[in-house]
């Protein structure tokens, strides 16, 4: 193998990845054609959860920072939309995004700046504390935030008002159209995040995760990069919150409470936080699991906690990790 042929990284694996992704995307596009509106809505929630987990995992899987307060960014995204609807009387999805994305970016940047100054334990507690403070603010200032009742958000118009929904069966139309809208944003988010973690910056983050001292001695600006990772991470999760509330129709302080942060953590762990697709799988699966589990038991936190502990004990690499391990084991067996 000459040096030159190895310098140009082989396109093979990249093409394989792209075609696999295209297949999955095709499958996702076809979903509404095969299932009813309820399932479509559920699938949409699943994609939204996947985006939230994707953002979260930039911090955990790639930078080594475990945040217990990511509900704050999701919730702020949701409330930003609710405020936009309430105070601007706006019903355009694009307008929601236009206001919401900068809002969550600013908040993530601000809190990230405070949090990344500290080590793992204190980082985790600080993130938790911040989200609890925001929760109590949302609860207390009820004349602005609607208190524990929350704020309603009407069904928005999509694509700059060109697509709107009224009349009978409009909710079905909305679910289908909104699904595609979210799917498009989901695809964009996945591609963006994929590029980020495979960029030199992404490698530097992983270096910081693996060995902070050595990274510093290679000249990597530790604190600044952690802060940027936090900002990006919070923004992605915030986008999920923005997408969530028009579908749910309502946002409450529940989305800011620590239990919700725990769910985000759980999705990343469920899918596996040491690889890229883990959180995506985790987000989707979790949405389905939760829907059926909540119908089955009211002690949802208990179940979640038990499964969380079980996962950490038995399947720390999550579903995707376990599957790829099994795959490797099978292919090794086939070789012998």
């Amino acid at each position, binding site marked *: 193998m000459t040096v030159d042929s190895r310098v140009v990284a082989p396109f093979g694996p990249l093409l394989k990845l792209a075609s696999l992704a295209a297949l999955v995307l095709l499958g996702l596009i076809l979903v509404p054609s095969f299932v009813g509106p309820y399932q479509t809505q559920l699938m949409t929630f699943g994609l939204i959860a996947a985006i939230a987990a994707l953002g979260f995992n930039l911090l955990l899987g790639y930078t080594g920072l475990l945040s217990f307060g990511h509900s704050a960014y999701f919730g702020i995204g949701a409330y930003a939309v609710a405020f936009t609807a309430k105070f601007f009387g706006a019903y355009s999805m694009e307008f929601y995004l236009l206001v919401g994305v900068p809002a969550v970016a600013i908040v993530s940047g601000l809190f990230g700046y405070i949090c990344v100054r500290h080590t793992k334990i204190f980082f*985790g507690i600080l993130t*938790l504390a*911040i989200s609890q403070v925001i929760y109590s603010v949302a609860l207390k200032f009820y004349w602005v935030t609607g208190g524990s009742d929350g704020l309603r958000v009407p069904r928005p118009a999509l694509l700059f008002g060109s697509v709107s929904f009224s009349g009978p069966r409009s909710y079905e139309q909305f679910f289908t159209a909104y699904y595609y809208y979210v799917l498009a944003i989901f695809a964009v988010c996945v591609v963006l995040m994929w590029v980020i973690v495979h960029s030199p910056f992404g490698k530097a983050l992983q270096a910081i995760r693996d060995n902070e001292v050595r990274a510093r001695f290679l000249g990597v600006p530790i604190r600044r990069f952690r802060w940027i990772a936090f900002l990006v991470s919070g923004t992605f999760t915030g986008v999920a919150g923005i997408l969530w509330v028009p579908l749910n129709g309502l946002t409450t302080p529940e989305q800011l409470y620590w239990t919700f942060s725990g769910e985000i953590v759980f999705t990343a762990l469920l899918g596996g936080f040491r690889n890229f697709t883990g959180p995506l799988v985790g987000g989707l699966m979790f949405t389905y699991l939760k829907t059926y589990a909540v119908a089955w038991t009211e002690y949802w936190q208990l179940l979640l906690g038990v499964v969380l502990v079980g996962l950490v004990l038995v399947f720390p690499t999550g579903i995707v990790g376990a599957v790829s391990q099994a795959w490797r084991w099978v292919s090794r067996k086939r070789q012998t």
Partner: protein
Amino acid sequence: MAILIIQILNSLLYASVLFLIAAGLSLIFGVMRIVNLAHGSLYALGAYATAWLIGRAIGLGVPSGWLFLLLPVGAFAVAVVGMIIEPLLLRPFYRRAEEYQLLVTFGLLQILEDLMRMIWGGTPLSADTLMDALPIIKVGGLFYPAYNLVVIGIGVIAAIVLWAAIYHTKFGVMLRATSQDRRMASALGLNVGMIYVMAFAIGCFMAGLGGAIVVPTQAAVLGMGVDALVIAFVVVVIGGLGSLKGALVGAVVVSFVRTAGIQFFPELELAVLYLIAAAVLLVRPTGLYGTAS
């Protein structure tokens, strides 16, 4: 003037409870180098269990004086829970990455919080009978429950007992040796496993005691565990993780600031605490007396 005294007494009351929680957290971290995110939930468990025990005892017609004995019983129950948790859920993770420890204790937090909801339901559980068992006394012309003074007293006694135990008993020496160098302690023949369980149990006892002594003054409610966890961390941030003296100082500081905050800025109370914690962390990342790296 009398109001000031009342405020001071209230702050000391809160500080007493906070000290117990924070000292337990610090002890566990100091000896075992783990941070138990479920620590606040153990405090809540102590509150619920004690309130429940008191309720049952009253139903059985137990005279009020004897009810006081239930306080340490409630704390002890939490210690027993701790002795089950440590070998089962924590020990497998000592050698693993820190994230896993945090994840496991977070899962434990979720389990405990929902267990309490399952066992005792969503309505607050109170134990004021115990508080009513003691007279209301006059402090500077105003009425003040004597029970509160008992709580302050218990806090002081706990601090003294803990300090004596750690620095003046053989077990305390073993604790300190293990906390400084686990492998060395093991090589010297100390039963590290037993020490870990005992240390964890003591930490849980203290959290549980905090919950037990506070519940007659304020009912046990869902979510008190998580709030306590966050505030306990503010205390150890200020006082330093792993330091007994720090837990005491931190508890007093946090408590007085909180009382002052509630007085002047009721909405900003939490924020002031976090601001102090942030300020201390900026200046001295390990807190005032901390041993954490």
